[in-house]
Every structure is written in structure tokens, then in C-alpha cells.
């Protein structure tokens, strides 16, 4: 469904990520793991047109979306949830969700899916998004992205700023999304969480893909264990 080939991108002519190859198949959950500053966010921004691509290609559903403006990538069915969430703080939870379906009218089934997944949002539906706690804001960000019934959900560090308990809960929600057949691409520093969710994973280091493979293989790989799983 998503094919990234030989992609390079960065800021002011300096590449932060280089020669990236990533593939995500329909119904799959794929993790991109790496430490702070490895280039995960840069990669995602380049995917969805928030950064110019200096080389390579992004194909989505067979169409070349390299360098398309963000709003057109979003309308093509690639929903990106950045770590900073970018909610609309002055609008109610409900309005944020309704806008997630832009430009269409909100689909009742999508509403149901989101409120099933995050019952908290139902309780808070009249509150402004800016008044929510960090965990609730993360739920709302994912919920807003789901309202468009995306073909691919791309999440950058969904556990940013969450306490360990909430981080686990967030991943439980992602697990149930995966069971419902939503295709997922997740960037994560908390490698155990990510590998428990993902079918496959890539290790991003200093802007390049160092390793790739099935999650179980990655979890067994001595280098990954040493660098990311805290095992000597």
C-alpha cells in the first residue's frame, strides 16, 4: 500500500534521512524504531508533504504522491498523527472529530468506532480540546485521524509525554485498531511496545535504515537487544 523508495529529505538542503526504503502492505502494522534524532519525524514529514523530498519516491496505493501538498496527501487517505498532535484547541472534542471527516460529513460508523475505542472522548465531547489531559489529547488526535476512514494511519511517537500506564493503554487501542483491519505505520522510541504491535519493523539510525525484518526477528537480534531493549 505504501512504498517508499530511495527517499532522501531534510532541511535547507541538508538531508536528515537518506536512501530510505520502507514498505507497508494492506492490513499490516509496521514499526519504525530508532532513538531520538534518528530521523523518524523527518521521514514522516517527507511522506506527507510537509517537507520537500530531495530524492526518491513515495507511492501510495500505486499513485506517486512524492511532494504532494499535505492536504492532498491527507485526502488521498494517508492520515498522519504527529507527535505534537496539532489539535484545534479552541474547539470541542466533538468538533475536532467532525472536522476529521473533512470535507465530507462525519460517518456515524466512524464515530462509533472512535468512541468505542476511546470512551473517554464521549464523556468529554463538549470540552474544548485544549483542556484535555495529554493522554486524552492523544486519543483525540488518533480519533480525529480515524474519522476520515484513512487507508493508512501514520503515527509519530504516540506515547510522547504519556505516563507508562497510559502508553500501554494507547498501544492497546492500536492493537484493537489493527484487529479491525486498519493499516498502521508507527514511529516509536519505546521499542518493546512497538515490536509487540508490529508485524514488521525497520531500525532507523542516523537517518538511514540499518535493519529491517519481522518483529520477532528484530526482537531477537543482538544489536537491537543491546541498543533498544536494554539487554546486555
Amino acid at each position, binding site marked *: 500500500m505504501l512504498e517508499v523508495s530511495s527517499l532522501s529529505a531534510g532541511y*535547507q538542503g541538508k538531508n536528515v534521512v537518506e536512501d530510505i526504503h520502507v514498505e507497508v502492505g494492506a492490513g499490516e502494522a509496521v514499526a519504525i524504531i530508532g532513538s531520538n534524532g534518528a530521523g523518524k519525524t523527518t521521514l514522516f514529514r517527507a511522506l506527507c*508533504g*510537509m*517537507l520537500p*523530498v530531495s530524492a526518491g519516491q513515495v507511492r501510495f496505493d500505486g499513485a506517486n504522491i512524492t*511532494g*504532494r*501538498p*499535505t492536504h492532498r496527501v491527507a485526502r488521498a487517505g494517508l492520515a498522519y498523527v504527529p507527535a505534537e498532535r496539532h489539535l484545534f484547541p479552541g474547539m470541542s472534542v466533538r468538533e475536532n472529530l467532525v472536522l476529521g471527516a473533512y470535507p465530507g460529513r462525519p460517518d456515524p460508523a466512524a464515530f462509533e468506532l472512535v468512541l468505542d475505542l476511546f470512551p473517554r472522548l464521549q464523556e468529554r465531547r463538549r470540552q474544548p480540546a485544549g483542556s484535555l489531559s495529554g493522554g486524552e489529547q492523544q486519543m483525540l488526535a488518533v480519533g480525529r485521524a480515524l474519522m476520515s476512514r484513512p487507508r493508512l494511519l501514520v503515527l509519530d511517537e504516540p506515547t510522547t509525554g504519556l505516563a507508562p500506564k497510559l502508553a500501554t493503554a494507547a498501544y492497546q487501542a492500536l492493537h484493537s485498531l489493527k484487529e479491525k483491519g486498519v493499516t498502521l505505520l508507527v514511529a516509536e522510541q519505546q521499542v518493546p511496545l512497538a515490536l509487540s504491535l508490529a508485524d514488521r519493523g525497520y531500525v532507523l539510525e542516523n537517518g538511514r535504515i540499518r535493519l529491517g525484518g519481522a518483529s520477532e526477528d528484530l526482537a531477537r537480534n543482538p544489536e537491537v537487544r543491546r541498543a533498544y531493549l536494554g539487554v546486555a
Partner: protein
Amino acid sequence: MTAEPDAPVDADAAPLGVSARPPRSLARAYWPVAATGALLALVPLWLGEERLMMRLAVDALVFGLYAVGFNVIFGSTNQLFLCVGALAGLGGYAAVILTEEAALPMAAGLVLATALATAVGGLLSWVAVRRSLGVIFTGIVTLTFSLSFANLLLGQRELTGGETGLVVSAGAGFLEDRIAAYYLFLGMLVVFLAVFRALQRSHVGWAFRALRDNELAAELAGVDVARYRVYAGLIGSAMLGITGAVYAHSNEFISPSTFAFGHVDVRVLVMLAFGGLGTLLGPVVGTVVFAVLDEILVDTGQLRTVLYGLLIIVLFLGFKRGVVPAVTDFLHLLARRARSRVGRPS
């Protein structure tokens, strides 16, 4: 095609003005000031016979003085004072009222009027710094001051004569001679430019440049940004106040339109943008060019306003740094070429 044609990118850090480093040696630092004085001193020899032309030349010089004052405040410390006319008007009206109504000696009136404008300008600057208003809000607050002052002039009829203004009878006799007035204002211009240069070269000037380039870095380097801003506000306002006061005395009468926002501020802004914000000679170049331009456009009536507007647009769109920096760069380039040619072994 780039990703987002409309997405904001970090374009050049300072779209307006430059912060050139002044030369170290005393002679090289001040010769442009002396040369300006000497060149402009020749103008009356050429135009001296024509009273009307001399009158225009005097007005042009006064605008040059305003521009230097504004340059100290905005060009050096990025405080958008949209009250150049109002501060000058404060000086002008105060000087005339103090000598005519309160019967003070002219010198005392001038000093008090200048002090008043300095105090008000300093206060505005202090408030802006205290409340960390930023360029835009500083601009709006000073604009409200400008417009309030203009309304006050119209409203306080008994003191200011309202729309018709005040007749200046006690004006110093010699100032009625346009040539004398010209040399007086030219002298002031030389002094203002020297002060500007001295500021650039002083510790204060170093701080100004530092905070224009990068406010945070300046703050981290131990520059008391707030204090230097207020200093600039005080010095610039003093320049505006005394110019307004002396100008009032050199005129037969003053009226609200003499110091109106649309008349003074807009013109000063355009002159300075053309010449080069924050540069020593920017105000001088702006003064000369716009004096000539006015003379050419004198019969165009309302179309002059249109041309002014177009000029503002073109200047700020395409020519952000102004003439002086562009010429300086060009000269530096020539000098470097010449040096490299000399240095090359034959």
C-alpha cells in the same frame, strides 16, 4: 515542484534593513558625515536666488532630520515608532505655545519642548519594552498615540488653534531668511549623523547591532536589551522633538497637517526604506531622492499618492535593504576584485 508553495519557510532573517559594522578608524568613520555636510552646503549657492526652491530644500532637510531620529529608534532597535510626526509636533506646538503664550525666551521654550517630546517618546519606549510588545503592537500603540495627538490638536482649539493652527510671530528673525534656516538645519543634520555614528561605534551601538541580529543571543551575551531599547527611544525622540520645535520657529505658522501621520510618518518610512534602514547615509539618500522626486511630481495631484503607494510596494517587495547597503556591497566587491588583481603574481 516543492512540497508546499505556500508553506512558511525560514526566509532571510531580517527582511528590512541591515546592521553594518561601522569602520574602526576615526577618519573613516566620520568622513561620510563631513562629506554629506560639505556637499549639501553647496545647495544654496545653486538655488539660493529662488526663494521657493530654498523653502523646499529646507523642508527636505527637516524630513532628513526626522528620518535620522526614526532611524535611531526603528533602524537600530526595531521599535516601530509610528509617531514621528506626533513627537515632532509635540516639540513644535510646545515650543510655540511656551514662547507665545507663556512668554518664555525662545531658548527655554526649545529646551522644554524637546524635553517634553523626549519624555513622551521615552515613556512609549519604556512601556513597549516593559510589556514586551514586539514590533507590531509597538506600532499599533504608537499609532494610537499619533492619532490621539492629532485629535487633541484639533480639539484643544483655544491652545492650538484647531484646524487653522498657530501663527508663529515670535520666530527668531534670522530664521525667516531661508538660507540661514537651511544652514541651521544642515548643521543639525551633521550633528545628528555624527551622533548616530557615535552611537554605532559605542558600546551601546554594539549592543544595538547584537540585538538586531539576534535578540536572544544578545540577551545571553549579557546585553541589557530592555535598557538599550529605552535609550534609543529617548535619543531618537529628542531628535524628533528638537527638530519639530526649531522647524516650528522657522515657519510662519504650524497646523495639525504640518505634523500629520499621513504627511510625516509615511514619508519618513518610505525615505528610509529606500535609503537603507539602520544605515548612516540611508536617511540622506532618501532625503535627496525624495526632494527631487517631489519636485518632478509636483503637478500630478492625486496621482502622486498612487505613485507613493506603488513605490512603497515596489520598495518593500523587491528592494528590502535599500540603496546604501546595495551600493556599499558593490563597492566592497570592486575593492576586493582590485585587491585580488594586485595580489595575483604576474
